[in-house]
């Protein structure tokens, strides 16, 4: 299964071959388009730089998304369950979520300066809306009979939230988390290009300024690889936490 999944790397392999051919044919001068081998060497010679910057980016995303999770999930559970709260927030959520976090970079710099703070705030915002909306959506999808069972048993509101509303919404919450992590990762790289002096985004910007195109390529490659790894990680956690769902949902044939 896992082996078959690796088939998904096929388009990437084709791209690498095309790249190598392009270098051979000297489509672009080598200072712009380095050999794949030279890019690989970055991981041998400059691994410390890559590692430090990747670590900085990952830390920001983990911090920002953790914050959005802690706020969006409880809030979403409440909004999904109580109609009045939904009425009071729906339109505002729809407005806020259509503002791309990148558009807020100038504001973030004004308020928080250059550094970790503006990046984390932007990642927090990038993750907040998908998590919030998917949590609300998950709560709405609860089978009505299940709530009736709980009410008939005279379960307290706390127990209903913890044992019924939250688990019922979990699959959807994880869908939101996947989107949030993806969007947070895009945001961290973008904000590092502008508002932060470390991280993978900053690394590739800096490489451009010093004409080290192989470092740019290596950076882009790492950004993609970490994106994939993060997504896989969330999927694994979801498969474990929602293992009761196995066999309940249709899978693509």
């Amino acid at each position, binding site marked *: 299964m896992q082996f078959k999944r690796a088939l998904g790397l096929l388009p990437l392999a084709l791209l690498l071959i095309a790249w190598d051919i392009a270098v051979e044919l000297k489509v672009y001068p080598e200072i712009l388009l380095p050999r794949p081998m030279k890019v690989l060497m970055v991981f041998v010679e400059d691994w410390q730089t890559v590692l430090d910057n990747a670590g900085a980016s990952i830390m920001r995303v983990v911090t920002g998304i953790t914050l959005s999770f802690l706020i969006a999930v409880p809030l979403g559970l409440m909004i999904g369950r109580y109609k009045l709260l939904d009425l009071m927030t729906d339109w505002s959520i729809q407005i806020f979520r259509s503002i791309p976090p990148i558009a807020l970079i100038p504001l973030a710099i004004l308020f928080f300066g250059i550094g970790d703070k503006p990046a984390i705030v932007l990642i927090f915002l990038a993750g907040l809306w998908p998590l919030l909306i998917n949590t609300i959506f998950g709560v709405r999808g609860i089978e009505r009979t299940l709530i*009736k069972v709980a009410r008939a048993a*005279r379960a307290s509101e706390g127990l209903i939230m913890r044992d019924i509303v939250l688990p019922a919404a979990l699959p959807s919450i994880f869908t939101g988390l996947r989107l949030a992590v993806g969007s947070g990762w895009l945001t961290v790289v973008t904000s590092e290009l502008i508002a932060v002096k470390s991280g993978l985004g900053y690394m590739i910007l800096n490489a451009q300024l010093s004409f080290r195109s192989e470092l740019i390529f290596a950076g882009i490659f790492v950004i993609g690889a970490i994106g994939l790894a993060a997504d896989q990680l969330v999927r694994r956690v979801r498969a474990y936490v929602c293992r*009761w769902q196995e066999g309940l949902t249709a899978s693509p044939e």
Partner: protein
Amino acid sequence: MNRFIECNGVGKIFPSKNEPVEALRGIDFVGEEGEFVCLLGRSGCGKSTLLMMMAGLETVTSGQIAVAGHEIKGPSSDTAIVFQDHGLFPWMTVQKNVEFNMKARGVAAKERRATASQFLEMTGLTGFGDRYPHELSGGMRQRVGIARALTTRPKALLMDEPFGALDAQTRGKLQDELLDIWEKQKTTVLFVTHSIDEALLLADRILVFSPRPGRIAADIKVDLPRPRTSQSGDFSALARELRGLVGADREID
């Protein structure tokens, strides 16, 4: 005679945008303690609505319902309900599902476990405690629902077409088991069904409903000796009478 379940002039009107729906009108009925009562009638004549009101999950528009001397104003600990679509929580194991009603009452974990095993045994589910609902057959799910309802030793067991979705054999088997349990536990049972045969196999008394608005069209005592089969004495005569009562309504609309 013990007036155990009392409905006095119970009516229900569902408000709706176009035209309010009058689901029930003038339901008067007194059930004795320990009686097995079937509510029989065609689709849409308000059987489920009446059961939901008895469970305290729907409000009455007019009249009152009392169970064991207490007027029903909301879910009560004297009643427990079994739904047609079983209402099991898919994220809980069978064991946790059966424990839920007790958990809602604040019963200690140890006692919950012991009582749950006892009822799992009674319903023939020993050894399935660690399964998830989707790993069970329809008949087994229905048993879990029944086991869960019994754990709090309700004075009245309300069942809404619990065997409607099962094949004839499984249904027959569960009917026998339910009668066993009923004789052992001496609870009062209100059992909604579409099936004349099922009502005759189970009930001490059958309330025949007629639609639009739902009313009790006939109240029939079933004195057939137990255990019953469709060959028992007056079974076919009673079946014919009931067919007439249920079918007569068909000519009205």
